[in-house]
């Protein structure tokens, strides 16, 4: 559905008297499949928005190519516009307009007739549970409501692909959960959804596949599960009163890659926690070591980011 090769963009930025070139995006290759939720995960300034703005025809790439929903970004930006929806990071509604007015106008800007646009507006208002507020001015909406209007505006023309730039940034946990449901609903309706996020849990829970972006480059791509599997196994922490005896009982097991003894626990590095735990329990039981607690730590996307960039996403 989306295919890019070597997409690049630099900006000239002025710092005081000096001019500096910022390489915002330095060669992005990616493939997004039809009907998936694809995520761009990366810290602020990684180049996510710049990439999206290039794909949405808002800025011209300095280099590279892209095909979006079958249309060539360079040769036929007009056709790209017709086939995609784009929801900017900073919102898109006017304080003194109502959601319904905004939706009908947006539909008509896409060339849809007034009656069809009105009917579509009704439908998406319903879908996004906004009917109740549809005729109130946008400035009276809550953050979550206003964000839903933004997304509704991005899909009023029923595009094949929709780009959502940080759809949940700044929302409270409840609105975020609501928004995730809305995004999944878009996928269920057959749309391909391309989101950006700097939230680890969002990339993990919502996206079918992700690309991790840092400093204008993609550093890793895949399903969240595969990315996590790739970097390291799981860690099982076994709380026992005598770690030495536990270590002795488990020391020779070949499914354990590494064993650390701590004050009141042992930490076991294994490939697959779910299959290791029964074996651990059995070994401890047959050596008659009384078990206190057992915890499974799976690697997070933050561990992936750390491995690839040497920094933690939480800190950057």
């Amino acid at each position, binding site marked *: 559905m989306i295919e890019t090769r070597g997409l690049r963009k630099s900006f000239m930025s002025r710092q005081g008297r000096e001019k500096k070139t910022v390489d915002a995006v330095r060669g992005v290759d990616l493939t997004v499949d039809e009907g998936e939720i694809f995520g761009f995960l990366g810290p602020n300034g990684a180049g996510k928005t710049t990439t999206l703005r290039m794909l*949405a*025809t*808002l*800025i*011209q790439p300095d280099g590279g190519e892209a095909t979006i929903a079958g249309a060539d970004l360079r040769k036929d930006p*007009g056709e790209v*516009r*017709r086939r*995609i*929806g*784009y929801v*900017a990071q*900073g*919102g*898109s*509604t*006017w*304080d*003194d*307009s109502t959601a319904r*007015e905004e939706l009908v*106008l*947006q539909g*008509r*800007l*896409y*060339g849809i007739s007034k009656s069809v646009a009105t009917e579509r507006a009704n439908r998406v208002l319903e879908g996004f549970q906004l009917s109740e507020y549809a005729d109130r001015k946008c400035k009276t909406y809550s953050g979550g409501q206003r964000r839903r209007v933004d997304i509704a*505006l991005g899909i009023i*023309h029923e595009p094949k692909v929709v780009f959502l730039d940080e759809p949940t940034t700044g929302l409270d946990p409840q609105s975020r959960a609501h928004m995730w449901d809305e995004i999944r609903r878009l996928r269920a309706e057959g749309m391909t959804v391309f989101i950006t996020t700097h939230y680890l849990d969002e990339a993990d829970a919502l996206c079918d596949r992700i690309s991790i972006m840092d400093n204008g480059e993609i550093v890793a791509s895949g399903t969240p599960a595969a990315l996590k599997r790739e970097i390291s196994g799981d860690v099982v922490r076994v709380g026992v009163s005598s770690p030495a005896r536990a270590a002795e009982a488990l020391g020779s097991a070949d499914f354990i890659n590494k064993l650390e003894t701590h004050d009141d626990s042992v930490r076991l590095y294994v490939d697959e926690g779910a299959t290791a735990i029964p074996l651990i329990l059995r070994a401890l039981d047959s050596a008659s070591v009384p078990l206190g607690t057992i915890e499974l730590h799976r690697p997070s996307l933050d561990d992936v980011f750390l491995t690839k960039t040497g920094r933690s996403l939480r800190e950057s």
Partner: protein
Amino acid sequence: MKLVRDTSLIFQRQMQLLLRNPVWILVGIFQPVMYLLLFAPLLKPALGVRTNAEAYEIFVPGLLVLLAIFGGLFQGFGLIAELRAGVIERSRVTPVSRFALLLGRSLRDTVSLLAQAVIITLLALAFDLRVFIGNLMLAYLMLALISLMTSALSYGVALAVKSEDALAPLMNTVAQPVLLLSGILLPLTFAPGWLQAVADWNPFSWAVNGVRALFLGDLGAPAVWQGLLIMAALAALALAWAARLFARSVR
């Protein structure tokens, strides 16, 4: 035709929002009326004319041109607010004509200016001003061209600088000399020769001379067609320039 359809969409939307804001309408009407009622009476002695009608024949055209220039030049602020709200970006991801994004807005500005002009003319009629309807229509055409030009100019600059802090001083810098060196408020008949020479290079002084000739009933005066021609050319230039900025990247 797509351009016409898109332009009317943008225009309707902008008109709707304008009419929704009663404060703006009040200010837009109140201000020129104050000029007319409070400033004009001082003019009769200053201009050395005998009747109110004569004073208004000179002053009303200047006031109208002034409103057209200033009304247009400060429209850019609204556009910056729209940029900030993301409305422009939202329009630019659609296949809507980029020229329509500009023209729809400039036409709104022109219509609201003409509404002001009509109110002022009607009031001046009450003070014995007399003008032929045909001449008046040509004068309004001149005002419309000025308004199209200055509002397009303001939108273009707004898109280029993207901040109110930069737009305000820029527009003031443009407006000041234009105002002082055009004989808009007072004719330059008594001005020293060098000032008149400078004013010849000010396109708006041609416009205001044209409108004055029309209000005096002198349809055949060269100032009329010269003013209209200059304003039409400049309006076309300003629209073409600003439309390019709408088509190019924003932010």
